[in-house]
């Protein structure tokens, strides 16, 4: 209904292949950016910034990573939280122990996570499907064990490392707004990079591997290389996300925050949000972060304080129920719903 596409013609491949070929989508993106960079930091409370927006962005980033691996390349991973942990601990060590500046430290966290992820991606060269899924679960337990038991990493106490004060060029990152911007900056850049990757040759190769791996190989896709790159990119995103969430949200690296249940939750996010879409990763993360708040709001009308037990159980039921519901009704998640609505709007008032 809102779309007016008449006169939007492309006379070069560059404009035809742009991220947002439809003008209204371009405006939508610009408005979203204004919202994220101006409106939210100016209007949102500290609680919203630190407890909702920052984890939302971080989980979104992590979900993008998992989506690249599972949604695009078709390699299910159930150990993704462990790579967040690798990123978190690695960047903390780089920043806190070796005094490397913050941004390179975060980047380093991502790269180290990526290196570890590539190693754990090696089994994908031989095995696929459920066998691979279970093999990735191994990464979760092995990494968890290493972090807890290797004193050099964890500092020894229950796998917990406090974050030192954050500084960029002498600027102290100590307020929620500053942390918000630090997170947002990474997320926007990496989301665009991810979008570029998935619409380029690599992204097409991943989807080819996901859809029919033998045909991909026979048409010349190097399965080994591209699968490993998928693992590398995916765990890079997890690493950056783990590092950001530790610096800006948790305030300390704690192995319990990167439990196998988090891996599961990430998988749930990309199913609900939409497999094989970048946008869907944010939908899923947003849903996951907002769900407890939503339940709180609803139940808050009936009782003064919602017991955390009820909250977490209800959360689990709704989260699980929605995964099942989406798989049955709309296997490609909220992002597909969004696209369906968008297409309807574009064709309005016609049905096709």
């Amino acid at each position, binding site marked *: 209904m809102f779309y007016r596409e008449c006169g939007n013609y492309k006379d070069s491949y560059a404009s035809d292949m742009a991220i947002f070929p439809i003008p209204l989508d371009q405006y939508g993106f610009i408005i979203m950016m204004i919202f994220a960079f101006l409106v939210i930091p100016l209007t949102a409370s500290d609680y919203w910034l630190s407890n909702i927006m920052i984890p939302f962005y971080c989980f979104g980033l992590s979900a993008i990573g998992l989506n690249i691996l599972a949604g695009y390349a*078709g390699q*299910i991973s159930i150990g993704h939280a462990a790579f967040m942990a690798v990123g978190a601990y690695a960047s903390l060590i780089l920043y806190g122990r070796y005094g490397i500046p913050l941004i390179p430290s975060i980047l380093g966290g991502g790269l180290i996570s990526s290196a570890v992820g590539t190693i754990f991606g090696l*089994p994908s060269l*031989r*095995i696929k*499907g*459920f*066998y691979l*899924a*279970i*093999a990735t*679960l*191994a990464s979760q*337990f*092995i990494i*968890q*064990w290493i972090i*807890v*038991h*290797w004193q050099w990493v964890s500092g020894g106490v229950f796998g917990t490392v406090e974050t030192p004060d954050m500084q960029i060029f002498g600027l102290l990152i100590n307020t929620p707004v500053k942390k918000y911007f630090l997170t947002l900056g990474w997320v926007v850049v990496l989301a665009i990079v991810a979008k570029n990757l998935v619409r380029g040759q690599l992204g097409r190769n991943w989807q080819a591997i996901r859809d029919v791996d*033998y*045909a991909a190989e026979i048409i010349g896709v190097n399965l080994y290389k591209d699968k490993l790159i998928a693992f590398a990119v995916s765990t890079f995103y997890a690493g950056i996300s783990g590092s950001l969430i530790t610096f800006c949200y948790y305030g300390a690296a704690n192995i319990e925050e990167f439990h*196998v249940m988090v891996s*599961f939750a990430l*998988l*749930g996010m990309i*199913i609900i949000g939409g497999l094989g879409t970048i946008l869907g990763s944010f939908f899923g993360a947003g849903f996951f972060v907002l769900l407890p708040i939503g339940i709180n709001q609803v139940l808050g009308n009936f009782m003064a304080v919602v017991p955390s*037990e*009820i909250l*977490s*159980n*209800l*959360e*689990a*039921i*709704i*989260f*699980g*129920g*929605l*995964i*099942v519901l989406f*798989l*049955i009704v709309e*296997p490609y998640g909220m992002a597909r719903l969004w696209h369906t609505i968008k297409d309807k709007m574009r064709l309005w008032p016609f049905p096709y």
Partner: protein
Amino acid sequence: MAFFFEVLVTGLMVGIMYSLVALGFALIFKASDVFNMAQGDMSLLAGLALVGFLELNFPLWLALLCTIAIMTVLAYGTVFIVLKPLVARPPIMLFMATFGLAYMIQGIGQSIWGTQAKGLNLGIPDIPVTIGGLFLSTFDLTFGAVAGILVVILVWFFHKTRTGRALRAVSDDHEAALSVGIPLLKAWAVTWMIAGIVAVVAGIAWGTRMGVQFSISYIAYKALPVLIIGGLDSIMGVIIAGLVVGAGENLSEVFIGPYVGGGIQTFFPYLIALLVLYFKPYGLFGKEIIERV
């Protein structure tokens, strides 16, 4: 040397219980190509339900019966509500659906029976006995025996009874099974029910040992490496792998653990699994799939 054997036998006893859980996975996978991530949560639910009924002062047999009834309802509900609409979809979707199911079972179970850890005491004494010069726990022995018996019964059921053979027919070839008149979904439901009963036994075994609590669902993660070592679709393979893993894990924890800081049994089975997969991508006893184009 005796110590070694003690460790080995204890490991084997635990291993049987791993086999039991893994068997739940394997049964469902064989019948419906679904890899059931909710298997651990089914054990949790079973444990919670049993304790709940016992707390209501039900006699043990009634509590057991009620628990099994709940697992049956769960099995039918899962198959006819969740899986039925997904029948023709790629297996990965069914896999993910069970993962949503896991969340739901967990949430519902804990909503009804609470999240606190509860003791489950069936009156089986946990006292060390000496058999042939080895110190062993009666508790382990009891459950080792129960699990062993259940495994034998299941193998017998699937190979010797008509229903069992029918179920196997479904798993071997869906279309052929349909053509001889075996309703696919009904067969699945029966399989899920059997997996549910296996979950009850596993729930009791683990619940008695470490209390009925959330972490019971984690025993599924113990069973997973067992499953891939054995091969997803081989019942015998899973049993053998369970024993191997149980023994290997216990031995390594006792003999290697101290040198590396302990706690290696959390991931040791996975290391074995990765190693096995590297050489045998379909597990030790799994069917290799020849790709045709």
